[in-house]
């Protein structure tokens, strides 16, 4: 069930991302709603389908984006892995973990994107890419982190209801 829910949620998020969020720029960076959703989902304690969600999100973005297909796939899987790792260690401060995952996740995905595109021949200047795209994107993702975390916590509470002791 939780895996099936990934499809409507991530498709809707991808529609929002391409139609709206990609047009809202800070310098030349933009927020990554899929990344933030996957990070927030993976940080929920009772969620067991984070890897499946990362796979679905990665495939969807790879299908739509001009990036090499393996970049979003690998990037999102790495982010979910990091989130699961952090969730076990800093479970008492979920928002802190959310910020940490959004920050490092964006950084990781962008580094992966820059080097993959450069390897494929795109003349992306690393310094400019970092200062004009990555840093603003990190800030936008951090701003998006709080509402998305709240939404995904509610969704997780609905899909994984807490067991009530008799």
């Amino acid at each position, binding site marked *: 069930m939780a895996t099936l829910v990934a499809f409507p949620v991530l498709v809707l998020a991808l529609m929002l991302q391409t139609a709206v969020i990609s047009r809202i720029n800070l310098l030349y960076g933009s927020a*990554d709603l899929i990344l933030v959703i996957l990070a927030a989902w993976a940080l929920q304690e009772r969620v067991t389908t984070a890897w499946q969600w990362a796979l679905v999100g990665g495939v969807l973005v790879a299908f739509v984006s001009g990036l090499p297909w393996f970049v979003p796939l690998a990037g999102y899987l790495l982010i979910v892995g990091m989130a699961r790792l952090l969730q076990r260690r800093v479970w008492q401060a979920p928002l802190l973990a959310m910020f940490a995952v959004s920050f490092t996740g964006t950084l990781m995905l962008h580094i992966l994107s820059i080097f993959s595109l450069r390897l494929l021949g*795109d003349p992306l200047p690393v310094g*400019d890419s970092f200062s004009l795209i990555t840093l603003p994107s990190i800030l936008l993702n951090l701003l998006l982190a709080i509402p998305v975390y709240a939404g995904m916590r509610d969704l997780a509470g609905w899909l994984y209801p807490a067991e009530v002791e008799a």
Partner: protein
Amino acid sequence: MKKNFPRSLQTIVIALLAIGVVALALGGYLTSLSNLVNQTIVGAQTWVSTRYLAVIDFLTVPRDVASLRQRNAELEAEVARLQTQVIELQQQVTETQILSALVDFARASPENTYKAATVIGRDPSPFLRYVILNIGSNDGIHRGMPVVTEQGLVGRVDAVTADAARVQLITDPASAVNVSLQNSKTEAMLVGSITGNLSLDMISQDVTVQPGDVVLTSGLGGGYPPNLLVGQVVSVRKLDYELFQQAAVQPIVNYDQIQFVLIITNFKPVDIAPLIPTAAP
């Protein structure tokens, strides 16, 4: 004494009194008295009427306020609906103007056949400058087809699905377009950047390039048809120790605001990759 007074006499006295009063009135002797009485009665009636109306007002006004409030709410809702309608109509007018300009452009270039498309999204990655269109292979769109607006060149189709297409803008960092400078009669390569700025490279040092030179596609390489407007040179960078000059180009299309585009469907891009010599093993 009254008892002894006969009834008929009483009647006669009353009749005489009445006749006397009527006679006095007809003679004008009671005018001042009747005026005094009339004024008193009219004054009293006015007072009673005014107070009555005040009481009626007091009792009915709260009901009127409620109905006025309801009416006001209805009118406000109507105004909001009409404002929404005005905005929608203004948007439709804008879209119609854009489409009309596209149609004019298509008519002005009858050698090409066009398909109009709407921009429905942008690439999720901020490193790439691609847009997504709402038509695909079901409408005869193929990879490599050039995309234009009535103003000039936009890019070319990079990927196609049945109902959508992804277009690489010429501002994409990986984009390279062969162009010619109309005034300088020379050729150059137009490249994009992560900031969306366009620049010209590979301009020979012997050529004089000036700000204001019009940049058109040259058609070399087979990727784009010739003579599509791209922009204007805004500044030139010429350094003696470099092999080529460079120039910054002001694009004629606002790539952040594109809503509708035309895809040139009768242009077949030429793949020159097999002609490029490779190092022998």
